[in-house]
């Protein structure tokens, strides 16, 4: 299963932190610091995998750099490394669709929405959606729900389209 999804910037500041098994917040911070330390020491143009023993002997860490951000997924041996790389691509694509050319600031200022997107893709450490368009659809629904608290009826697709942030 997937143990954690973390986004940090190149200064080591966390932008998104989601652990799928309970970790006290101090432990989370420590893990993030360790991970950042490891990633910093890695040269550019190297492989995306890190053999990481933070979570135990069988866990692995995959990371991907997008502009100023590291996207990090920590998982155990029930997952396939390359598939997780694909998953990260889906996540980033979805962010891109939602924010239009996503950048670090979008993630900084959309804490809640980024969590919503992530929850649509991964639940309880299991991947539940691999299609970014499905995620965007669900997200549209949710946004509408938030705006019109009384309407729980799905609005026809034609009106969909991302509205502001």
């Amino acid at each position, binding site marked *: 299963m997937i143990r954690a999804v973390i986004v940090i910037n190149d200064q080591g500041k966390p932008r998104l932190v989601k652990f799928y098994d309970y970790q006290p917040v101090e432990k989370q911070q420590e893990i993030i610091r360790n991970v950042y330390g490891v990633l910093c020491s890695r040269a550019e143009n190297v*492989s995306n*995998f890190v053999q990481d023993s933070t979570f135990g002997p069988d866990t692995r860490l995959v990371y991907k750099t997008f502009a100023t951000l590291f996207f990090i997924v920590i998982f155990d041996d*029930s997952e396939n490394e390359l598939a997780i790389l694909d998953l990260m691509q889906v996540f980033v694509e979805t962010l891109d669709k939602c924010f239009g050319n996503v950048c670090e600031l979008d993630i*900084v200022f959309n804490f809640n929405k980024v969590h919503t997107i992530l929850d649509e893709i991964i639940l309880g450490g299991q991947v*539940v959606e691999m299609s970014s368009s499905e995620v965007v659809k669900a997200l549209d629904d949710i946004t509408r729900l*938030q705006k019109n608290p009384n309407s729980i009826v799905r609005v026809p697709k034609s009106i969909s389209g991302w509205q502001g942030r």
Partner: protein
Amino acid sequence: MSGGGGPSLMDSLFQRTLDDLIKGIRLHLPGAAQSSFISKSLDEIRREIKSTDSQTKSTALQKLTYLHSLHGIDMSWAAFHAVELTSSPSFLHKKTGYLAASLSFRPSMDVLLLLTNQLRKDLSSTNQHEASLALECLSVICTPDFARDLTPDIFTLLSSGKNSIRKKAIACLLMVFSQYPDAVRVCFKRLVDNLESADNVQTLAATVGVFCELASKEPRSYIPLAPEFYRILVDSRNNWVLIKVLKIFAHLAKLEPRLAKKVVELICDHMKQSEAKSLVFECVRTIVSSFYEYEFAVKLAVVKIREFLLDSDLNLRYLGLQGLLLVAPNHLWAVLENKEVVIKSLSDVDRNIKLEALRLVMSMVSDDNVVEICRVLIGYALKSDPEFCNEILRSMLSTCYRNVYEIIIDFDWYVSLLAEMARIPHCQNGEEIEFQLIDIGMRVKAVRPELVRVGRGLLIDPALLGSPFIHRILSAAAWVSGEYVKFSRNPFEIMEALLQPRTNLLPPSIRSVYIHSTFKVLSFFLHSFLLPGKGVNSSLSNFVDIEPGFTYSESEQEFTEIDHATSSSGLNKRDTFTQEAVVNMLTLVITSLTPLAESHDVEIQERVRNVLGLAQLAQQEISCNHDQKEKMVDKVDLKTSIIIRLINDALSEDFGPVSFSAQERVPVPNGLVLEENLSKLDSLCADVQLSISESFSLVKPILLPTDGDSISNQQNEEESETSPAESMSLLAEHRKRHGLFYLPSDHNKNASSSFPPANDPNQRDNDVEDLVKLTEESLVLKRKPSSSRPRPVVVKLDEGERLPITVKKTDENDDLISGAVRDVLLGNEASLRSSNPSGRRKGESHSKDKVENSETGNLSKRRSKHRNHGKNVEDKEENSEKSKKKSGGRHKARRRADGGIDVAVQKQVIPDFLL
């Protein structure tokens, strides 16, 4: 939601939104300014969160959640407010509450109890997004209580018409099962049904994902589902699903070899046809880790691995190496075939790839090629960055040490390799090299001359003293040179090396080893000079030939024998130890060490005084005799000679490797309280320490019987003209006392028939064989732990004993889950069988399953036939079960949990579904 403060303009006017907070944090520089801003905001939040207006409360909670998640601020105090918001009619507020809960709640919180009802309500909400929120939250914070109380609700969602809910409910099940294994009894069947949901690939993916996790913990229970997984492997075109199914088969095939035969070709087809690298790699991994007996499949996998290795994508190259590492244990040829790529990868830019390559190289090591591979690796170590260099050295050291130097045949070579490692500039493995140098010295007698030669090389090089990393190795070299000085060609040279001025760069602990070694060298030198008959000759022949465990009295005897037969060879040797040489050495020792007699380090001071005491005494007597050549014959009668003989006897007993458990075998003396708090003794200790330093002056009596004391004791007593026999017995007693736990001890003489002699200096190869034999014997010994006699290789014995403890125990919960699964699965099958002829009884007859379980064993072959029939029936059953569930499924589940499970019977059953 985050952009605007919400519908109420008034609120946004007076309350900072999350955006404002984030902007504020970004405006303040990290450090004091930022943390004071955060604590100010926290004060605001504390006020706002108490507001009765749910919009204000929600915004406050959003801000707090943000601070908690990204800045590590504690928010456990706000748990109640989060619970409160989850029940808000507004979706936004509900969502805020759930997000806060799933990011911050601990399983131990009391407030969780309050959430149960709300979760239940939202799980059954008609709005799928509300149900999603509840499922998401539950998947993170699930407790046994939640799982027990909410199982019926999740059960309902497992067949929800909305795929988005169904897949999430399935993913959530994993957590529920792990918290409350009895939920399996309720939900398992419906989970299995979802394996057939071909209509929605994400639902299927979630289902196989759950099975993959379950099977990784306890595969046995899922063997009956193999036909389902097989069907998916044939039908599915989704890589994600296929990867998970492959992982499941990798687990199952280890238990049921017949499965392998069935699926291996299918996997090969996928491997050949798939475009997706992830799937190809998963196929490769499955084949080489679980289906390695199928030669053709492995060959194909190795071809794929080779493609990966030659790819320009670093990720694929890394995975290729990993694949190779998996092949290595069973098919070393695959590694050898790709040797060049592996060796080349050692100099890759990517550290991961280098490490994998190193591991692969290490997997190739055998006793034939260890010399060659180590030569190559040393070359790479010299070229690499310090970190990787040490990684290389570390793996060389550990590989060579494996099973007590199993692969080393030429120990002379290995010892010089160790010395070579020590000279590598970045070497930081001093500790391990130190250990191995001494360890080899103790274990392998034949290598001692070479060890002394290598040690000399290290000691006499003044440059090495400058590097702190090497100090530990020098310490080993000094110890070896002192302990085995009899093999030295030129003890005088070693003495010079031990006393060279740059030794003041060493830390005190290591310097004291140096000084103790000078003591050994000096006493050896004097012994050879004063008592030539027992000098070099006796040490070279006698000490080596004597079994490691000769007793003290026996050695005495041998000495007296030799006394009578002073051989001519001893006389020849005496030339090295001329009067002049002795006088020179004594002068060297006294001049170099005198300044250290006032050292602040007690360890150094003590040892220096020991050496000086001996040296000064010897100097007096020997220079007295200097002019009277004719009196030389009487050397034997000198006081020094007597002492030297005693010291030499004491030092001549061999050290052996010490068993790891030796310490545990020392019985705790009666009346000794080990856990006593000693803080009260502080004042006392201060006094004692003072008296210790005083006591080291030569005239005062020694208070504490520590290790070195017995030696200085001896000198004191010598000076005060007491009988030397007493000090002797002290020494002997000390050695004897500890000898109990130094392994090759007293008993060996009697037991030599069962214990191969390991000390023929002429036959090194034999010696290694002996070593191997010894280890084998120790393994045999393991079976009779009653034998209390310590032996040289008990070290191995310990390892053997420790193994079972490290074996991973299955989680108790996993056992419960698999027990429940077996119960449900076999119960299902049994009821299916019975339901075919006699209509559907299943809904009502859960309790009968147990009875029927015993029949399943015999009927397993028939089951597959019934399978197809069963499908329709199952659907109908599901409905009936559903209606039953509504009435009182929960109680039912509990009742069934209470009933005993007849697992033992089912364990025997390995159904051959696929045959």
